[in-house]
């Protein structure tokens, strides 16, 4: 099923947000497909996080219409279908991993058994089950990000909003988190991600919402900055889990954005020597204008 065939899990219509004389959002309409990963990109101050806050209800815009699975819904009702992972880890550092999970499970009106099961399941998913009794502050940055993600999922939402989930993380950790997000997407979740790592985002995202200024947003499948060298690879089949993990590729079509032509060629050479070379259907390299 292609992205176009999917139904809209979330529709944002007529979003208007003004701050004094500045139009932050001007009549923005966005459709989010279910089981997709949507990247929100834009310059600093363009309103990426603000857009997320408008969706969650943390900010009350001048106007917004929200539709969940085609039905109009109030922002405060949408909350139960949304998980939010913040730019900076948002949990109690002096509580253990498990205690944090239990606390937010209780806050989400879940019963004790559900909390226990969900905690175990999520911590296993994010790879923190062995660290469940550690204090949150004792976790590494990547672990904390995964814990934050797990907490966001405690009430089993269908939509996950992530505000710069890779901020402050090293490359290896970022890769781990991306894999985790991709796995979540594969598990049926819809992810809306604000991130500055556009290259990585483009690698995993199905579509993009680019906030271009003057309160406008552009929705496209591909958004790569001008001047970047792009390598677009299309495989003739879906990659296996082992292949995805090994090559950090999680979709049938992938676009890598590299800063120079030299890096692009280097990457192509490297790819030519890899075992997955045989399943590559098409490769093209171009510079974004």
């Amino acid at each position, binding site marked *: 099923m292609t992205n176009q065939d999917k139904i809209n899990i979330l529709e944002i219509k007529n979003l208007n947000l003004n*701050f004094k004389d500045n139009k932050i959002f001007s009549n923005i309409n966005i459709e989010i497909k279910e089981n997709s990963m949507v990247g929100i990109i834009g310059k600093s101050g363009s309103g990426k996080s603000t857009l997320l806050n408008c969706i*969650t*209800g*943390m*900010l*009350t815009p001048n106007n917004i219409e929200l539709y969940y699975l085609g039905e109009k819904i109030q922002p405060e009702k949408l*909350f139960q279908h949304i998980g*939010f992972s*913040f730019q*900076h*880890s*948002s*949990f*109690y*550092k*002096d*509580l253990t991993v498990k*205690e944090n999970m*239990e*606390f*937010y499970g*209780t*806050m*989400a*009106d879940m019963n004790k058994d559900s909390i226990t099961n969900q905690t175990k399941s999520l911590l296993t998913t994010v790879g923190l089950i062995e660290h469940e009794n550690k*204090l949150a502050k004792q976790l590494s940055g990547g672990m904390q990000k995964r814990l934050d993600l797990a*907490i966001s999922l405690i009430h089993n939402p269908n939509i996950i909003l992530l505000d710069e989930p890779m901020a402050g993380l090293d490359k290896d950790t970022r890769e781990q988190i991306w894999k985790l997000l991709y796995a979540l997407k594969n598990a049926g979740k819809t992810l809306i991600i604000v991130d500055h790592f556009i290259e990585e985002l483009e690698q995993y995202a199905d579509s993009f919402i680019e906030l271009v200024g003057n309160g406008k947003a552009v929705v496209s499948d591909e958004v790569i900055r001008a001047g970047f060298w792009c390598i677009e690879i299309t495989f003739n089949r879906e990659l296996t889990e082992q292949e995805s993990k090994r090559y950090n590729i999680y979709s049938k079509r992938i676009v890598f954005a590299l800063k120079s032509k030299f890096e692009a060629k280097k990457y192509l050479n490297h790819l030519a020597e890899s075992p997955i070379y045989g399943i590559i259907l098409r490769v093209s390299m171009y510079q974004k204008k």
Partner: protein
Amino acid sequence: MGKLWAVIRKNYKTSIRNPEMTLAIIFGPILFVILIGLSYQSSALTSNINIGLYTPHTESTSLIETALQNVDKLNLVKVRSEQECTTLLQKHLLHACLIISYPDPDDRYHFDAKMILDYSRSSITLIISDTLKNIISTMERQIIYQSVSNMRLATDSQNLGFGEAKEQMEFFKTLISSTKNDVGTISDKINAESTRVRLQLLTTGNNLQQAYNDISNSESDLILQQSKVRAYREKVTLLKTKTSNARNNIQNAWRITCNNQGTNYYPAITENFDYSKLSADTQSICSMEATFYYMTVDYDNQLAILENDLTNADSMISNTIAQIESTKSQIQTYNLQVSNEVNNVNAGQLNIQTYLDAQRYNLDNAGQREEGITASIDKIQSLMNGLNAALNPDKLSNPIKQSIATFTNNDTKLAYLFPVIICFIVMMTSLLIGLTVRYYERKSAASKRNELFADMKYIVMGDFIFVLILILTELLVIFIGFKLFFGLDSLHNIHIIIFTIILYIIIWILVGFILAEMYDSLDTAIFVSVTVGILIFMMSDVLIPLEVYPKYLAFFTSINPFMMLAELLRINYVSSVDVTSEALPINVGFIVTIAVLIIVLWITKIYKKNQNKN
């Protein structure tokens, strides 16, 4: 409830895993209590007080020495001059100076004690003045010991004289009492005897009168009988006359009759008369006449006997009457004598009674005087006792025993600060912990998630309950500590006090919450909260008396929650009185205050939320 409990549990866990927080919350109050408790012990207080002593007179150095020897628990220091003492005082090396001097060099029984105090340390001024008073008392005793020895010599002889006077008075008192008893007894006996004699005499008089009356009656009867006898005798005499006449008549008649017979009849009558010579008729008449004659003779003889008897009877009656008269006279004499005797007895009794009354009156007067004398003796004795007591130097030097009643069992001179300390702890801990917990909650990494995920009212309420439990636990620790150090036996209406303290805690927690909501910087919030706390503390009655404030300011100080709780605790703890009536309006007032604070908190949150949106 589950959410609320989750927040409280979360706060508890995050708190105990934070060493600084744990130290501040758990060990803070314990350390505080130990610190205050130890420092407030009277021994610790007094042993650290340095007092400089100076006298310009060599004669008075003994007083200083006496103070140094006898005053324990104080650090007394001899200094060389008043100036040196003042200098040391200014350098805070001494707490007070005591300058002893004689106003009159010739008078060694009076001296001036000049105390120089450092009023900048008001908290310890009370103790210093108290200890200085003790030193001066010691010196007073030294002087009084000297004067007392002289007084004792003078009073000992007086005491002896008073003792002897008292003994004599006691003897007289006994004598008067005894005599009074004797007079009473004699008087009673005389009265009894007089009554008995008087009764006898009156009985005798009555008997004599009765005899007199009886004799008089007999006499009247006798006189009557005598008159009857005399009348009878007169009749007899008359009858004799008549009889004589009749006999003469008969004799004449007989003579006539019988003489015709030529016979001297008279002898014939008396002798055998021969009637044969007379005719029969004449004989019969003559015979009858003779018979009649003899009958009159007999009759006349009988009358004579009767007359004689009557005469004798008359005579006897007269004699009897005479005897009766004599007896009557005697009875009247006796009666008069009895009357006289009764009068004599009465007069005698009256005289004796009058005499005894006079004696009794005299004895009563003597008794009254004796009471007066006894009272005088007692007064003298009391004076002697007072004099003896006054001769005790200890009592003489402290004629009025002074004592400052503490409100605890222990003599902790600063224990009066307990209510204020409790109020201060309640205020500052509630304010700061409330502020800190709420601020950290608001600024914690989890705050954004809480805003999105958790119901904020549960978070705020959970924080509030957690802080309340925390402070109550701290207070419990403090109360137990103070119970050990000071004793809290005089704390009454404990339920009212606890309820009121909880209300105050709630107020300060809410103020802390408001400050935490108002400021984005913890430093600023803490600075403001401390400033607020100090301002409230300054506006209480603790440092600056309420009375010195202007009226408009005094109103605000009077409704200062700190002040009101301190006042309530002070009334309850220091004065140990029932505070039910005082607590009710205060509690109602604070419920209103709490309601206002909650509204302010709510408005603050709404304001902040709107600000965030913008």
